[in-house]
């Protein structure tokens, strides 16, 4: 037996073992290359434009920036709106995420479906729905007047309130999904243990569950804050002059005056704020919580803050227990294992509230009266107009092609990177993760403007390829994040088993790894697809004037002339998203069953 092995190893031609660095480099190179060429370089170029005017060094843009109070005021407004959005979204998302994390079976799937439906319904559709709801002829005013409560419409639109409502509506699903990743990892026996040790429900929640969920709250807060700060759709559609946000100023500089220097300077300002927030976050919680790593990975042992926090939470617990004590106790209840009816009612009410706006588009799209509430009659004229419009149809085809291309390219680049992040023992893993996440961290507007400048130099403006590359840059972090989470749950011993049974690494990948990871990979693909399909910021510039994508076409229509065709498009998008989520869920279940 051993002789045989000896002769065999002698007979086989001796191949030099590939150097150990080759595989990780091959897996990491595509994403590093993509982000360096199409993110770091263009953003760097844009920032450089703020101090270099073609002849030499200049600080003129910064003088312009600080000479009037306009820009600082706008920055302050931006921060105020983003902060308010963050607070409300996180507070609202907490009970929803909590209920999802404790729900089981079909109840859980139903809750997740509704959150995902809002999450994937286009920002444009959702923001536009609020225009309809809050407008002078809108749902609220229409209802109030028909009930005779007021006789003239109230101004609900174009103020801080309407912007906040729109922003929270846009960000709440993101907050829920981010928080959920952490909450799902909290050991459910811990609150039970607290209960057996003598803690009443309120105390068990505030002193045990809540501290463990804090990393999720923090992750959700930073995701919402950073998304909000770079957002322009909601303030543009729902805000007045006093709710102008800083990204809108950048658009103005590019689209109206082509003042690259000032656009660069504003970008520097915005980026500085965002980076400061992120550095703070990393110090306190660590980036790892963003990918749903187990709660409580880092703890400062410093006691003064902790003790104060402990006191506050203890008091909160005692207070809520006193509150609970006011109600008569129903008899056979366990330990709060089954969520209370009150919680469920509140959460479902919130889910209805965040889903409803988009659904209002359905009756409007079939009405005769256009966009005024209430809809009257039944007609398919808006759909006819939509399908006869070459502009809309070309935009739809282009969007589908770009989204599909983005999905494929993001997977090709993101999946190897995810394998690298999970499996290799790199020293610079933290830095690599931060680099991969940078398209999420850098405000989208800055990426879009920088990319526009680069694409103009390369002749990529208005091309499908340009859009695919641009969208892949912003979609690839999501692919890496979802795939990392999927891979972390994958038992790598299965690969070793396959290899021990004679499968070469690629064969093991094909026959064992990919079939098991199929559902996770599909959902990553859909994530990238949907990100591209709804992408507006990059398309706003890089599609050029003529070759619009669906969101760009939507944006042009909404900002130039509001037509009821929009309602028909919105309805179509809503149905499309619902079908996608349903199909993905079915596929996931089938792969689990097999």
């Amino acid at each position: 037996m051993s002789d045989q092995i000896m002769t065999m190893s002698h007979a086989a031609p001796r191949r030099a073992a590939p150097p150990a660095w080759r595989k990780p480099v091959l897996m990491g190179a595509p994403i590093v290359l993509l982000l360096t060429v199409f993110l770091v370089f263009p953003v760097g170029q844009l920032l450089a434009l703020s101090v270099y005017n073609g002849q030499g060094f200049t600080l003129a843009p910064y003088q312009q920036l600080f000479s009037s109070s306009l820009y600082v005021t706008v920055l302050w407004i931006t921060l105020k709106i983003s902060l308010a959005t963050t607070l409300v979204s996180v507070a609202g998302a907490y009970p929803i995420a909590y209920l999802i994390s404790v729900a089981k079976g079909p109840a859980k799937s139903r809750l997740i479906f509704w959150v995902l439906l809002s999450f994937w319904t286009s920002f444009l559709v959702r923001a536009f729905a609020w225009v309809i709801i809050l407008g002078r002829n809108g749902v609220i005013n229409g209802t109030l007047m028909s009930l005779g409560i007021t006789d003239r419409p109230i101004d609900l639109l174009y103020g801080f309130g309407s912007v906040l409502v729109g922003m929270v509506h846009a960000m709440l699903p993101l907050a829920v999904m981010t928080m959920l990743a952490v909450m799902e990892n909290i050991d459910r026996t811990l609150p039970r243990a607290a209960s057996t040790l003598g803690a009443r429900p309120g105390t068990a929640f505030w002193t045990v569950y809540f501290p463990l969920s804090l990393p999720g709250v923090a992750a959700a807060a930073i995701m919402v804050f950073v998304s909000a700060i770079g957002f322009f759709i909601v303030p543009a559609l729902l805000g007045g002059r006093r709710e102008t946000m800083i990204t809108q100023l950048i658009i103005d500089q590019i689209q109206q005056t082509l003042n690259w220097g000032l656009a660069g300077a504003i970008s520097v300002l915005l980026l500085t704020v965002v980076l400061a927030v992120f550095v703070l976050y990393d110090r306190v919680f660590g980036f790892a919580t963003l990918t749903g790593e187990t709660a409580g990975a880092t703890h400062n042992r410093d006691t003064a803050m902790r003790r104060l926090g402990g006191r506050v939470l203890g008091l909160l617990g005692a207070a809520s227990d006193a509150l609970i004590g006011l109600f008569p106790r129903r008899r056979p209840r366990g330990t709060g294992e089954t969520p209370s009816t009150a919680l469920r009612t509140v959460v479902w009410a919130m889910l209805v509230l965040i889903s409803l706006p988009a659904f209002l588009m359905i009756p409007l799209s079939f009405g005769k009266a256009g966009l005024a509430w209430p809809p009257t009659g039944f007609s398919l004229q808006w759909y006819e107009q939509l399908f006869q419009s070459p502009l809309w149809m070309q935009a739809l085809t282009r969007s589908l092609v770009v989204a599909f291309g983005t999905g494929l390219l993001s997977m090709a680049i993101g999946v190897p990177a995810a394998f690298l992040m999970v499996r290799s023992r790199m020293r610079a893993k933290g830095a690599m993760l931060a680099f991969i996440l940078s398209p999420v961290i850098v405000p989208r507007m800055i990426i879009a403007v920088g990319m526009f400048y680069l694409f103009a130099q390369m002749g990529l403006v208005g091309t499908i390829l340009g859009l695919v590359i641009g969208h892949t840059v912003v979609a690839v972090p999501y692919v890496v994040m979802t795939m990392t989470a999927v891979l972390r749950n994958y038992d790598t011993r299965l690969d070793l088993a396959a290899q021990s049974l004679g499968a070469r690494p690629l064969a093991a990948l094909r026959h064992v790894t990919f079939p098991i990871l199929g559902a996770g990979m599909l959902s990553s693909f859909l994530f990238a697809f949907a990100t591209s399909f709804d992408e507006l910021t990059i398309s706003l510039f890089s599609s050029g004037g003529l070759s619009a994508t669906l969101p760009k076409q939507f944006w042009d229509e909404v900002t130039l002339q509001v037509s009821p065709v929009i309602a028909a498009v919105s309805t179509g998008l809503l149905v499309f998203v619902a079908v996608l989520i349903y199909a993905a869920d079915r596929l996931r279940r089938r792969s689990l069953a097999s």
Partner: protein
Amino acid sequence: MSSSSLTVQGLAKRYGDFVALAPTDLVVADGEFLTLLGPSGSGKTTLLSLLAGLVPPDEGIVRIGAQDVTYAPPYERDIGVVFQNYALFPHMTIAENIAFPLKMRKIPEAEAKKRAREALEMVHLPHIAGRYPRELSGGQQQRVALARCMVYKPSIILMDEPLGALDKKLREHMQLEIKHLHRELGTTVVYVTHDQEEAMTMSDRICLMNSGRIEQLGTPADLYFRPRTLFVADFLGESNLLPAALGPRLGDEAEIRLGSAGIPGRALANGQDLPPGSSVRVMVRPQNLSIARPSGDETAVMGRVSDVMVTGSLTKVYMQPLDAALPPLVAAFATRNEAEAIRIDDVLALSWDSRDAVVIPDRAPAAVAGIAAKAA
């Protein structure tokens, strides 16, 4: 072991059609170490959860001391639970974890700190108070979980497979340690395990469970030597179960006739009240079999040796009886010098003392009767 500290009457739990626990009665004495033993799905964890108040029962009563706690939430029962995964709070230091139940009981901070320190000393870990749970080994986490449970001296401690995650050596060490702590503190312990050896070494009494009901409740020796059902005989250790026909009673023994040949013999009637002529099983433990020198008190079976296995201090001999109606027998002897060793194909007679044989009702006829009743 004077008064009862825990009383359960008609306690039952169903999940839909699945009966997790059939109506069950159980009394645990003060200071007793009672083990709930059984395969997975036997209802032992359900019973423990009902005792802890983590799950509400469908019917029945649970009393701790004299107090009815059937529907009381866990925090109002005077209990402690050691969870399978320890359930230490990851965001609290070890000292904070142990002081947690004292804080919940509004014990002043200084006093709580002192008692937490004492509890850590009791489990031989005084130096780790400032650490976080994830910085400890599995064995250390286990001890902290024990300390957290004992620090407030609950009248009953419930343990759910607390040693399941530890390796064999550490597990045996911790078994001893838990026994010592139990003796020192005199607390009542209800302990869940699926490991029969663990149950045998640790318990005052074992409550063996199977498909949602109690199969037998008694001391480890009761269950091992005097099992009342086939399940108990089979679950605990190795056993020989020989089909036999029951003859008339003689004091606490009964006459039996083994196999198709009707080899005559006697066995302990085991308190079973079965009519003569019933078909039964006779159980004999392998170590109670010896190579036959038939005398008046012994029953013997002839057969051919099919396998011999030396397992260290014991040698196991497998024998196929000449009567084909009898199943193969296994006997365990102290391993002997090679000269006297038993070899494959030797023909032997294995015999046993009638005091070491026990009559167990055969389940098969009852099942057949059940099916017949259904058919009719």
